[in-house]
């Protein structure tokens, strides 16, 4: 069981030393950062703010060593075969774009995506559809938001890529990636997984899931903003043609030729966010001290309470399956005829409760369901039952005046 009191002490914003702590229920958008992460980044800036991988002085060597260490920590964290399979990006979106633009798709190649993808895993494919004529197909899900393997099996034939979200930021439902990968591979399709929401909440073993590519962001897993990881199986990464090249991606050049570096450098063009990478490594190290089962259990306990209380309010409709066990730490709800921005702002003003309102970058789903917007509570290891109770109390007060 998680010791939230001890955990909260690691977060400056939550430990009460700097004024009243906010009730932060927006971790699906951005997690808070433990002091250890901030300190690791500060250490870089204070003590060895040099180029990694380029120069040979002591400061540079230290930076190189720390970046390498971060890569190793992350590789181990997702059980990658080697460090080289870890490519640093700015975020998941960049990882998806890197993949979509490097895989070498041609006209009429088929890409399958689910019906509730984040814009980051929708727009890059639609742009390629308009640019080179690929075919983007939507895998129809179940009514309750869960993944429909039958529907998937029916349309997989002929697909070249299956690009799918692991845990949805819309309703918290986690897709059965292992089964999806199995079916896809039987049909010679490659699988890319958007793990932005899942990486911080469940153990991801890329070898066990047998995914071909996977991307996630640092900022949702206690890490710094502007950091992310794109993972790929070594043999597949070597085949990809990087779409962003330049400094640090080549071994040497002449006026009319170049020789690319091996992976991962060939995908990491230009000077990297070293402080961010080091911070991300520290965040992963911090996260690794916990058992993901404990995190899931903690989130489920809070989610169960919130969901059950929301169900008592007749006006409220919950997005996704009724069973909170399927929804990770996310509860997304709306009130017919009410702009949920108003609710979110009222909670913030009344009790310093931070939740996300809007369409959560899944506009396509909202358009399809004719729902204007929703309010999303997303929980994490630092949230407490007291916070959940305050949230419910204030929400009940708000609903009374609507």
């Amino acid at each position: 069981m998680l010791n939230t009191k001890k955990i909260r002490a690691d977060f400056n914003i939550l430990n009460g030393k700097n004024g009243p702590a906010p009730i932060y229920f927006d971790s699906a958008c951005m997690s808070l950062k433990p002091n250890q992460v901030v300190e690791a980044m500060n250490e870089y800036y204070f003590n060895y703010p040099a180029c990694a991988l380029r120069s040979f002085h002591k400061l540079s060597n230290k930076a190189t060593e720390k970046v390498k260490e971060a890569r190793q920590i992350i590789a181990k964290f997702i059980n990658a075969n080697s460090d080289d399979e870890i490519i640093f990006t700015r975020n998941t979106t960049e990882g998806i774009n890197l993949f979509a633009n490097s895989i070498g798709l041609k006209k009429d190649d088929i890409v399958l995506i689910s019906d509730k993808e984040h814009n980051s895993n929708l727009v890059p494919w639609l742009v390629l559809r308009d640019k080179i004529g690929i075919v983007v197909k939507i895998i129809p899900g179940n009514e309750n938001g869960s993944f429909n393997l039958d529907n998937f099996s029916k349309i997989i034939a002929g697909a070249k890529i299956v690009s799918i979200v692991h845990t949805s930021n819309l309703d918290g439902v986690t897709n059965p990636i292992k089964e999806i990968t199995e079916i896809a591979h039987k049909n010679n399709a490659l699988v890319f997984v958007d793990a932005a929401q899942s990486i911080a909440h469940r153990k991801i073993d890329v070898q066990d899931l047998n995914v071909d590519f996977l991307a996630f962001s640092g900022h949702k897993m206690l890490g710094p903003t502007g950091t992310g990881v794109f993972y790929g199986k070594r043999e597949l990464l070597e085949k990809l043609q990087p779409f962003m090249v330049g400094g640090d991606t080549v071994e040497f050049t002449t006026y009319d030729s170049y020789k690319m570096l091996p992976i991962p450098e060939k995908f990491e063009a230009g000077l990297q966010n070293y402080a961010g990478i080091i911070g991300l490594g520290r965040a992963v190290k911090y996260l690794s001290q916990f058992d993901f089962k404990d995190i899931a259990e903690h989130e489920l306990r809070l989610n169960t309470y919130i969901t059950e209380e929301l169900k008592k309010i007749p006006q409220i409709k919950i997005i996704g399956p009724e069973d909170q066990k399927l929804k990770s730490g996310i509860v997304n709800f709306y009130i017919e005829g009410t702009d949920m921005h108003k609710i979110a702002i009222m909670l913030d003003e009344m009790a310093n409760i931070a939740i996300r309102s809007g369409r959560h970058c899944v506009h396509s789903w909202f358009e399809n369901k004719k729902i204007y917007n929703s309010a999303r509570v997303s929980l994490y290891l630092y949230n407490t039952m007291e916070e959940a109770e305050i949230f419910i109390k204030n929400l009940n007060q708000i609903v009374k005046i609507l």
Partner: protein
Amino acid sequence: MPCLVALIVFGIMGIFSATQRALAKEAFGCVFRRITFRPCNTSFAEKVKGKLLAKVLKRSTFLAKVLNKYYEVFSWIFFILMVGSTIWVIRGGFNFYVYGSCNGLNQSGFCAFDPSGSNNKVTAVGDSTACGITPKTEATVTLKGVDLSGFPTENVTGKDKVVFIGCYACDYSRKAYPDILKLVKNKNATLTFAHYPAKGDTTFLGEAGYCVNKMYPDKYWDFNTYLFEADKNYILDKTNLDSILSSFNFDVKIVDECANSPETKNAFDNQVKELDKTGLYGTPTIFINGKAFVGPKPYRVYRSAINKYIFF
């Protein structure tokens, strides 16, 4: 409607604060979409509403409920109040520019007097209507039916006509006089001067001025200007009059005789009676092309009156 209110409010606040400027921009986007018959897509109005409701809800659920239900109505009320107060502010700014007071004409100091003596009435307690005092405004002060032919006038051919009724002992008259001289000079206007003994005993100076104008018309305006510019206590001391007259090389004896003659006293009394016909209630009272200004105003006010910038 809330967007429009927010646009105006945040627009004004945005002049001073970048944070408010962003809100003004969002409000503008919302208003622009509405006037182009598209729905507002930023939820701006709802965000503002949410902030307001939260503050009220913390105090009273009932009030928050009422506000939520009649939000649009309240928005309209505040919009109308805002438009009204904006007009009032603009009017105040205009008044300040042209009259020297945000409240309009007749709101600055002047030397009050009560020729009718009605202020001395005794009224019954609680009978506010029986006081007998009718508040006076500049609108009731007029030159109609007033014969100014006996008063000293310079530059009679001037296009614009300025009449200055002032008192040598009145600080407000003394303040306004140089501006009027400047105005007359700059605008090549006709100036008529009338001394009205509003404060203290200045009749003797008026009578002396009457005689100087009659006997030394070329030096009258220098003499008059001296009386407004010299030390007030000095000129109000009757024993200094002869010294003043002699400093202008007037024949003191003749001027004194003239000033003390029954004809002069009668003429001066008649002039004061003539001035009373204007309905004036304080000095200085200045007429610029017939429009009355009571009390000293900034120079720009007089200039605006000649330039006809005054609309109401």
